[in-house]
């Protein structure tokens, strides 16, 4: 694998808050990454450090084999589409494209105008007069048409309706196929992107929890449902992430340890196995266990 980004022991502190805690990973060229995690997990801070907009408190970051901070040679290959990008007051959509053309070596003006038409973005409209959804469409358009070798999309689609998001995914896949590059997509709409991303980075409270192939994460965890003693028998010796109860029925979310024997065992115990989607897995891995689940409260009454 050719790494376009390497991060070693990256830590970022804001006063006594640790936003990133000893994070190490590499990003390969020609790969689409999903950068996942809850709000405040450290995703945006990480992207700011990788794009030279913030310093790490400690640790090393290398982007295209060089430190990114104030390094025009590196930054000309990097595009960072932010959730709330600010533009000069007098800018129209066309001005934004004009600026992007000078910033990005691979900028494709025809593609940009095609995307703008697809998203129904009026080229002459002042950016500050765009609706929330149109502003997101503009960000997505710039991010795609820049064709930067390393492109970050940070929650790019606030206000975009499902049809516009689908358009973004389809254009991203098609253009990525024709012009492979490294894309980092930070999003909460995990179910929508789980088939799109090749690899998943999951950050939780500043720590890197997962760095794995998205396909390997499919079916990595299951929900096992059945009578309590049967589920206990099945869950024994496995990692349980979560447990719910409904009268005599128990649903246990179990990580790893599956495989052919597990299926036979579940069948013998009359336990139903249901694979967890990537989104459900992320939820289970990043939600701290609640002290009182509704079912428990019910039982205590």
């Amino acid at each position, binding site marked *: 694998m050719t790494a376009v980004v390497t991060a070693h022991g990256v830590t970022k502190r804001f006063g006594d808050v640790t936003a990133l805690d000893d994070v190490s990973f590499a990003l390969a060229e020609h*790969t*689409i990454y999903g950068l996942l995690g809850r709000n405040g997990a450290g995703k945006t801070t990480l992207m700011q450090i990788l794009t030279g907009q913030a310093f790490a408190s400690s640790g090393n970051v290398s982007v295209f084999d060089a430190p990114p901070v104030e390094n025009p040679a590196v930054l000309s290959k990097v595009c960072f589409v932010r959730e709330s990008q600010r533009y000069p007051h007098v800018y129209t959509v066309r001005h934004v494209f004009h600026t992007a053309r000078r910033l990005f070596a691979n900028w494709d003006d025809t593609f940009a105008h095609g995307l703008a038409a697809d998203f129904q973005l009026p080229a002459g409209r002042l950016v500050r007069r765009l609706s929330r959804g149109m502003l997101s469409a503009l960000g997505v358009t710039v991010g795609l048409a820049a064709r930067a070798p390393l492109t970050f999309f940070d929650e790019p689609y606030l206000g975009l309706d499902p049809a516009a998001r689908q358009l973004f*995914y*389809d254009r991203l*896949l*098609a253009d*990525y*196929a*024709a012009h492979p590059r490294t894309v980092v997509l930070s999003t909460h709409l995990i179910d929508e992107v789980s*088939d*799109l*991303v*090749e690899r998943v980075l999951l950050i939780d409270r500043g720590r890197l929890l997962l760095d794995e192939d*998205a*396909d*390997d994460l*499919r*079916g990595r965890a*299951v929900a096992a449902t059945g009578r309590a003693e049967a589920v206990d028998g099945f869950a024994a010796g496995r990692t349980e992430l979560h447990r719910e109860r409904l009268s005599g029925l128990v649903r246990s979310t179990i990580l790893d340890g599956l495989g052919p024997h597990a299926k036979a065992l579940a*069948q013998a115990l*009359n336990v139903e196995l249901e*694979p967890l989607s990537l989104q459900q897995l992320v939820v289970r891995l990043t939600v701290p266990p609640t002290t009182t689940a509704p079912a428990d409260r019910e039982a205590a009454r």
Partner: protein
Amino acid sequence: MDDDRPIFLQIAELIENSIIDGSLVEEAQVPSTNELAAFHRINPATAAKGVNQLVSEGTLYKRRGIGMFVAGGARARLRERRRERFTEQYVEPLLAEARKLGIGHDELMKMIDSFGAVVGRDLG
């Protein structure tokens, strides 16, 4: 793509199904990785992994610079392999559910026969 198995396996199986049902004949060109990725809305690398698995198993072969093609004899080999898995995949779960519901051997056979009579033409 929505069951628990890795997507690349599902892609491989979709192509196998097309070969088995004859919609992809031997020596026919299979869709490119990018076409598969766009159609199924999946990552091209994942689609490529599925196709490459079929290449390594000898179901497909690569013509440099042109694309992937169905290998000679692929259909017969795939049918043979599917038949070997038929018991485990279809008969075992059927019997397990029948046991659970208290459906006995004779009743089960009668169900299969009467359903078979309905779709008999298709089964040949």
